């Protein structure tokens, strides 16, 4: 399943496909997303379809943040479901990522 992207001004919104990002699916996700991110700088991940993320999935998202930061870009997250949010808080990643309730809020944060 391909991730879909949408351009809002200079911000790229990527919707993470599938309903789970675990050790099995994270590898594929990482491979696909790396090229996509290479062309962007301001990126939002829309996680609203994800019902489950494990530590491998989290690691994949972290590596996206680092890839973007290294190139001077930034990553914001939106649309987190409760189980995903719980995991982020458990490993304190809500303090590393900028997390917004909705896509619009995240886009606005980039504008401001």
């Amino acid at each position, binding site marked *: 399943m391909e991730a879909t992207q949408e351009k809002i001004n200079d911000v790229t919104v990527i919707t993470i496909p599938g309903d789970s990002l*675990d050790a*099995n699916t994270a590898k594929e996700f990482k491979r696909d997303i790396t090229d996509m991110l290479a062309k962007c700088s301001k990126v939002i991940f829309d996680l609203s379809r994800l019902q489950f993320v*494990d530590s491998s999935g989290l690691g994949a998202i972290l590596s996206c943040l680092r890839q973007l930061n290294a190139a001077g870009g930034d990553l914001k997250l939106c649309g987190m479901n*409760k189980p995903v949010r719980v995991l982020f808080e458990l490993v*304190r990643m809500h303090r590393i990522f900028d997390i917004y309730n909705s896509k619009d809020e995240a886009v606005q944060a980039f504008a401001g």
Partner: protein
Amino acid sequence: MQILNADPDILISTPSRQVLSAFLEEFRRMVEPMTPLLRTTIAFASGRNSFLISKDRGCSCLHPTDEQMIQESEACTYYRAIHLIEITYQDNSIGTLSICYDRSKTSAPEIVQHLVETSIRIVALEKEEENLLEELGASWESLGAVYEITSDLRSIQNHTEALDRIMDKAISLEEGLQAALWIEQAGFLETTITRNTNLKASRNSSSGLLARAILQGRGLVINGRSRISAFDLTEPELSHAQRVIIAPIATKRSVIGALEIWQEYGEKDFDSRTMRLIEALALQLAMVIENERLYREYIQSDRLRQEIDIGSKIQQTLLLGNPPCNVSGISLASLTIPSQNIDGDFYDFIRHSDHCLDIVIGDVMGKGVPAALFGAATKSQFIRAAGHTISSSGNIRLPIPEEIVNLVHTDVVSQFMEFDSFVTVCYARFDTKLRRMDYVDCGHTRTVHFQRDKNSYRLLEGDNIPIGFARLEVYNQVSVEFSEGDIFLFYSDGITETKSRNDEMFGEERLAQLLCSSSRLSSSQILRKIQKELSAFSESETFADDLTCLVVKIPLKETQTQSSSEPSSRLVIQSDLKELERVREFARQVCTDLAPPEVSEDLIFQIKLALTEAVTNIIRHAYKERSGETIQIEAYAQDDSLVIQLSHNGESFDPTKVPPPAFDGSRDGGFGLFIIASIIGKVEYSCDEQGRNVITLIKKFQEEN
């Protein structure tokens, strides 16, 4: 958080270089195991050099004396507070530590300060004990050794002795000196030690010469009777004094008392040289008293104990071994329930071959850090002794248990006697080919041997006394034979001495009967049963003593194994990450089936996550991503908990060796175990009767409070 091993020798070149590098080494060693809890960035500066000691959250440009820089650094926005600690060694500044911490962890600076003080103290003691310290490596074991060496200097007895010695020195400076050591307690000055006077008093500490010296924090010298009388004296001991010196006893925090020296006859005035000597002695007194206080604080501080459970860290890293899984014909399980106190219980396993295994279990008399460290030291002596090979008549062979015990006894008996301590030990060797256990019992609790063919038990006991009682004791081994289905139970006296509300002890008999009645269960099930019975008996989940218990079961041939009577759900999956979907479906199913409906939703997610992490770990680390292997997952409800057991044939792994995750986002991996530990109350590693590794997750259906 990670520790950067910058070498201070390269960076610093000052006269106190040796002290500095010793301090940094000590400080790192102490701060390292606590880094997961401290979550702070610590940097150090000395002169123009600065470097990072520990690092959290990708804070890369921290200059220890430049707060502005820290605040401006984008990478450091997680921190909102900075604390600086000046490091002094014998009154000379050797550098500055800066601690950058999350304001929500308010006690971080205090803990770091404590570690700094402890490190400096150890450095000072190390200098005296330099020759002994050659043996030290860089591990936790060596921290144990440091404490073992220094504990005598810090014990109460030696603390008083040290004060006595300093006071003796003070009055030996000149003829006819009288002296009193005053220590402030709850607003009053009290004589603690006196020389050449019967003075015994408690005084208000706000008036008089003593109060003056203490308030000003400076020593005073008065020569001549008339000058002394000119003061408004509240010190009757000075009514005939010709001259007096009062030196305040000051620690880094405050002035805690004074050393008063006076002379009633003689012509020679006290000069500045005498004053300096007395001040130096007062400083020594301050150090001894402060060391004592720090030491007490170190073991007593509840707050510290909550923040960093030193005792359980020592226990986990030094005292308790992990049962090996690959000894054929033996199924092992171990249980430890730590108490509120730190105990000296220890055990370990030494595997010699696939049919020969040694078990050592011991209990050091006493409590607290010293007992734990004695336990650790004794344990490592046993491991060392068991590794010695013996060559007799041209053959090289393993030492037999009695040789091992006698060797250790010779090595440690003097130290135990010196500290008025002793250790009870049972050292046992299981040989599954010979079907024999050889053991040496050094006053330990009696091992329960369940004999399946007789369906009864016996208590095994040797006739030796604990190690540390008598130098000339010779330890002898005893042999017992065993057969399939037999069980051996080793335990600490904490188990049998567990008391009920009516002050009745759990006792040997009850324990042995319990073993007989649960002889069909697997070794880990037996332990859970014992734990349950103990809780029920004492009507408490916590215990006064550490409870340690080891079960060695000689399993029956597979055809005869009894299946557990507990109803359980079971799933067998391939060692393929594609199976994770099924694992989560299984998690949903068991939670819906077994958990009370009102908690199932949150629980489902947590169990899904923990199981996904556990299975991923097994596939990646135990099976190294090999396909064609299987993992069995079983789940059942027990009391108020959901129990999930994952069995696999891959390599066992030691969870204590896994580094903590990087919460600063600098590494992708390493969260798995942390997640499991956070979600699951209790995780046990053991192996079953077929030699498979078993990971048991026990999750309470409902969280307490």
